[in-house]
């Protein structure tokens, strides 16, 4: 490892030194370990990730709203992936299959990101299986209820489960059934309409997050949530065009 020997890090001279005690500590931390020349060694794997998350949370504490957003979005994404996976077997057109392939690819990676974020903060990372079932291991969550040790709670994507509200925009059982029984052009039509509804729900979850006191301060959360908003808004526009090209007037 290369060790740098550099001049002391400057503190902005124009900044009045009126900082809260916490900020003062953080500033010292940020302004660099003047006593140690070399950074701490990089640790791979979960131990390193947990340690880095802890340091990150010291800089920007996270809130219950952040935890709820990540957990809720895992459920939300799981349902999107579930219905996207129906496209090939339900006779979707080439353009809808391209869209669903992108959704599956993008949102699967995002589920991993959310699970990592939760796991690194020793929160329940949830399990998502290939059918979109989300299992929350409540017992392992540090802030979880006292009673349910050893009792996993499983929610099928799209079904409301005890203690877990359906997230905005998620398909109801009736909608899931309608989509699952549709084929070909009708599948395309319903898929686009329902996925626009689903994406709009995700966008509203982002707005809820940023409307909560103290939420969305952490770098990963901000970037991820902002990306969800912009990526899914962009995809809504694309689906709108696809519906128009089918000759369907999209619902408002």
């Amino acid at each position, binding site marked *: 490892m290369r060790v740098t020997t550099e001049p002391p*890090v400057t503190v902005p001279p124009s900044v009045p030194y009126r900082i809260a005690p916490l900020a003062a500590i953080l500033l010292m931390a940020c302004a660099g370990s003047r006593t140690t020349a070399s950074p701490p060694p990089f640790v791979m794997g979960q131990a390193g990730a947990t340690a880095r998350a802890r340091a990150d949370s010291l800089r920007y504490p996270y809130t219950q709203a952040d935890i709820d957003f990540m957990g809720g979005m895992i459920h939300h994404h799981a349902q999107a992936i579930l219905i996207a996976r129906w496209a090939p077997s339900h006779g979707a057109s080439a353009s809808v299959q391209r869209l669903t392939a992108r959704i599956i690819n993008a949102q699967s990676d995002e589920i991993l990101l959310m699970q990592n974020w939760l796991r690194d903060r020793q929160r329940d990372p949830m399990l998502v299986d290939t059918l979109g079932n989300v299992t929350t291991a409540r017992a392992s969550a540090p802030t979880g209820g006292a009673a349910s040790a050893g009792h996993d709670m499983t929610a099928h994507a799209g079904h409301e489960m005890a203690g877990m509200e359906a997230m905005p925009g998620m398909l109801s059982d009736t909608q899931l059934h309608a989509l699952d029984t549709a084929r070909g052009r009708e599948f395309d039509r319903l898929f686009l309409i329902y996925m626009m509804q689903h994406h709009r729900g995700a966008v509203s979850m982002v707005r809820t997050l940023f409307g909560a006191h103290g939420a969305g301060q952490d770098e990963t959360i901000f970037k991820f949530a902002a990306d969800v908003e912009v990526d899914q808004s962009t995809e809504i526009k694309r689906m709108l065009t696809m519906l128009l090209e089918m*000759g*369907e007037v999209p619902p408002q």
Partner: protein
Amino acid sequence: MFLSSRRQYGAVSRVGRVTALVALTGLVAACGRTSATPAPTPAPGPSTDWARDPRNTMRAGLFDAQEAISNLRVTAKAVSPPGFLGITNSDLAFTGKYAIQGNYNGPVIWDISDPAKPVLVTAYPCPASQNDISVYRNLMFMSAEANNGRTDCLPGGVADTVSALRMRGVRIFDISDIKTPKLIANVQTCRGSHTHTVLEDPKDRQNVYIYVSGSAGIRSPNELAGCAGSVASDDPNSSRLRIEIIKVPLADPSKAAVVGRANIFAGLSISPRHGLSDADKAQQATQLAAARARGAFVGRNPQSGMDMVVPPQLVRPLLDSIAKAGGRTAANAADTTAARTAAQGALNRLFAAAPGGPAGAVSERSQCHDITVYPALGLAGGACEGHGLLLDISNPVNPVRLDAAADSNFAYWHSATFNNDGTKLLFSDEWGGGGAPKCRAGDKPEWGANAIFSIKNRKLVFESYYKIPSYQSANENCVAHNGSLIPIPGRDVMVQSWYQGGISVFDWTDPKHPMEIASFDRGPVDSTRMVMGGSWSVYWYNGKIISSEIARGLDVAEMIPSPYVSQNEIDAAKTVQWDYLNAQGQPKIEWPPSFALARAFTDQMERKGCFSGQRIGAIRASLTAAERATGGTRSTALSNLVDTLDADTRAGCDDDKATLLSKAVQDLRGTVL
């Protein structure tokens, strides 16, 4: 050096490209094969070669990762200073001998005079994201987007949802003394600033302009007056449709303020050109042919301009109403003919009235992620979420949209780069936002890639995609990101960041067949999981390739000669020297007269096989003799060479290049070197 992965992904004639490449190097077929017998005719598709790329499987490590390098030399790997190491390094700007590196904890300034040893000048704590940097004379600009940025540059974030302490916008620093930057203004904007672009107006030397890009949420009007998040059609002042423009008076930069919001999206219907992938087009063509065969109504999609089957839901009511008007209960042949004519009107109304249509309610609409301005040409390329835009910026405060492109393969248009003569525009798609591994074997080559367009009559014409010819692991975030042109004369060569996919140098002179010519990559930061890292931006600046490594620090590299780039071409590139560089404010590259320039063009004629070996040898001998001579002898030698080159410019092989060569020699005559 490895050559087996020299592959590109072209939209057209992939096999032809591969064959040409083999002919070029004569080495490709041999590499990567250890069999004793000569390999049969090389016809591997790109996928098999991508699968064999040495970058694919490398040992992980933060500072001891395995490396793969091709046709580059890394001269330095400077580690970020304490307090900044481990915090995301972001974009770069350059002024004089300094590289200024954005970092989410504040700007880090390096003296890069010695390419082997960047020296830290200062690291200035001022946390925010993304802290992307630009410079202009004694000013430094820095973007703040997230909700945690503070006006006082202190850490700790801003917990309140509405707070006067929050800084989202562009900070301006005075860097007259570069060791001690002074914050002189926080210009607040409605969406904060994800990135920004400094624009110098050739007609206005009193001010510079900043185009603010960003797509994060709109602030409450209670936090910043004038910000409105309402649906744009209801509110002409909505921030949703705008790029914000800051005017910076150079006489007093602290008075910088938002002066305009340009609506470059007005009337933009979802895209006309290149909206569909090849598979979509094939399916559509089949459907259209079948529909025509059975006599179905075919109309023109008013957005794309392409033919489409008029949906039965539109046709039936038309037929019914026409028949009814004629007093019939069922349509006859004449009614059907009339309905065919009316069907187009019905299609037009459908598109116009729907949300997103020109006459409909505008709902979710675009913002620009990044805008690259090319003031010398009065053009800008806007990478604006679902669209790539070509803008006329002759009037900086009133950019006008010339064209827009969309692409079903593109998730998110992220950044734009013009070629030097402004005849091509390259957009990149930051699929997954840069934090996801999008270069795995299963990730399509046209996803998370560059899309290359020609600019013809100020319109965008799609040519091909380019993605690094490598399969990265699931532990490496990888997607197309920031880059800049390398000033190799007579060619379009660019160096580009691919996050943990490393840096890739590619030639896109032929826009249908972009080709990688050099690369540098490390193994993942962590072997067990995705940890953010890799090159955020890499730019050519005054002979050096400088890369901002997210997790590690600042890398410095240089080109080395290869079958793709000669020493003379590298030397000619190094003659281009700038006082400063903001890559999103693209300078027009001009080459001062040099013998290297004439030799670079000679090398290119040789590579193309335009001149005989004898002719090439004669030109080189003449150049060497002229360079050794002085005064009148040199002028005479150069004049004689120009005379002989006259015939070469009419040889019919590459007359444009021969003319460039001739002009390079002519320019040498009046120059004291």
